[in-house]
């Protein structure tokens, strides 16, 4: 029992949870905007829907609803990747993302369930600043992060079942099984001083990389899993060193002296933050897609929840950075949608669907929009 406790609550290099949250949330945001927005056109087509779970039985999500959820989740996810994540925000991201796929069987990609499990783990991750994850000394900071171990075990279970079903159907199963074992072993590497284990972990990363290169039908998912494997399997000193280099600007930018109580900056910071919260969602008015404005406005409201007392009572600049990260998220959404073919594909798909259902008037209108955004 004690050993089990040591497994879950033992120390891990804090660089790993630090990078994992930011990497997955950042990639998730762009996946939502670039890959899932074009799929939004099919929602509510024919006013028919079957959800993944009975609780959504009579609910027919519209395109606007779906795109709003994608915008909300993406902007909030990216804002958390840009500046110190907060458990409330991650909870909103997990809820929004899960709602997005679970409200309809139109979204039945198996890995979306895995990402939801990951997001659930992230809620309990240590919410680390760059200063906490990367000390100035060469010694990598270690700390207990049971949710990180749970993240690794969740990934291992997924690979275990991939291997088990493959074995039951007489297909080769050694590669996913190697991935499963690899993730379990790698989760131990920061606290076990066995040289053999440390030597074995780094080459084991070849298993998930090979698996996802072979399986690469979903490029973004493969990239996500390869990135996760690199973070989990990297030697402690390597990931710490890389983190020190990458976070140097952030550490000098965000650091400030701790000031007790309120000072004269407090009211300035408060009004500036409030103004920012109102202004950031306005960027979404430039994105001509249904539901996106509502989604971004809800993100600002969610951010208000996240900031809570901090917004009014903290005299430091933390609220400003939070609002800046929200701006960053909204700006990235606008740039992603306008610089990619996502918006064209959305309207093109909607026009094709309207044509198939014989709604020529709607098809014409959607076709005009698609042509406007054709690149």
């Amino acid at each position, binding site marked *: 029992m004690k050993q089990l406790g040591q497994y879950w609550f033992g120390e891990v290099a804090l660089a790993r949870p630090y990078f994992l949250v930011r990497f997955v949330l950042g990639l998730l945001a762009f996946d939502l905007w670039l890959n899932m927005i074009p799929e939004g056109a099919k929602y509510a*087509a024919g006013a*028919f829907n*079957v959800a993944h779970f009975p609780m959504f039985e009579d609910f027919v999500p519209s395109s606007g609803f779906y795109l709003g959820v994608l915008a909300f989740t993406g902007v909030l996810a990216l804002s958390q990747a840009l500046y110190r994540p907060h458990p409330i925000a991650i909870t909103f991201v997990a809820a929004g993302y899960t709602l997005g796929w679970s409200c309809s*069987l139109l979204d039945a990609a198996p890995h979306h369930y895995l990402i939801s499990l990951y997001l659930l783990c992230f809620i309990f991750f240590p919410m680390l600043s760059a200063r906490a994850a990367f000390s100035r000394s060469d010694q990598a900071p270690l700390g207990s992060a049971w949710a990180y171990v749970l993240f690794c075990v969740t990934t291992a*279970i997924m690979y275990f079942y*991939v291997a088990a*079903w493959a074995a039951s159907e007489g297909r080769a199963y050694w590669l996913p099984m190697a991935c499963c074992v690899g993730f379990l072993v790698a989760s131990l590497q920061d606290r076990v001083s066995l040289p053999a284990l440390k030597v074995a972990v780094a080459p084991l990363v070849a298993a998930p990389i090979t698996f996802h290169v072979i399986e690469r039908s979903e490029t973004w998912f493969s990239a996500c899993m390869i990135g996760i494997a690199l973070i989990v399997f990297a030697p402690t000193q390597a990931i710490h060193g890389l983190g020190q280099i990458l976070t140097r600007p952030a550490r000098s930018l965000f650091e400030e002296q701790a000031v007790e109580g309120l000072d004269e900056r407090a009211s300035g910071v408060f009004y500036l933050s409030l103004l920012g919260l109102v202004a950031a969602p306005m960027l979404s008015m430039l994105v001509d897609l249904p539901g996106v404005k509502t989604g971004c406005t809800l993100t600002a409201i969610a951010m208000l929840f996240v900031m809570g007392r901090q917004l009014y009572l903290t005299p430091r600049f933390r609220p400003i950075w939070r609002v800046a990260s929200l701006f960053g998220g909204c700006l990235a959404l606008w740039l992603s949608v306008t610089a990619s073919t996502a918006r064209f594909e959305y309207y093109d798909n909607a026009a094709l669907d309207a044509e198939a259902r014989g709604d020529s008037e709607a098809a014409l209108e959607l076709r005009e929009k698609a042509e406007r955004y054709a690149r």
Partner: protein
Amino acid sequence: MASSQTEPPPPLPSGKSRHRTGLFIAAFVGLQFLIPLSYLVREDASDDRFTWRTVSSTEAETCEARASIQRFDGTEEALSLETLLHEQWVDYVGEGRRSVVDAFLLRQCEREDVQQAALFTKCDDERGEREFSLRCGGERAYETTRTAAR
């Protein structure tokens, strides 16, 4: 401006908190092991959600579907699935995914003067030809025939 201090590492959960965390971990891991196993008792073999039988989306099987309704006066009317549903729903219906088939047939029963709705599917794999029918007023479609394709 910059502080040279390093923030303290996250604290180790202790006592009650550790116990609660342990219970959460046990439930989370236990569910993850049990949910994929539920596939073994699923009525609909095409429904492999949350099981990790596939990690990425797979191409839809080549299936066809035809639907019709029977009115109370005995007349039968063929339905064009493509004009009623998005093509992805047509694929689901063609594969005979039970939850979608049931919802689709129930939906046809909501039309006026419909006594029975029926769906005929044909796949190139072991599912072969299947026919589902729903007498309006019922909750669940009845699978009447099944013919192996090979």
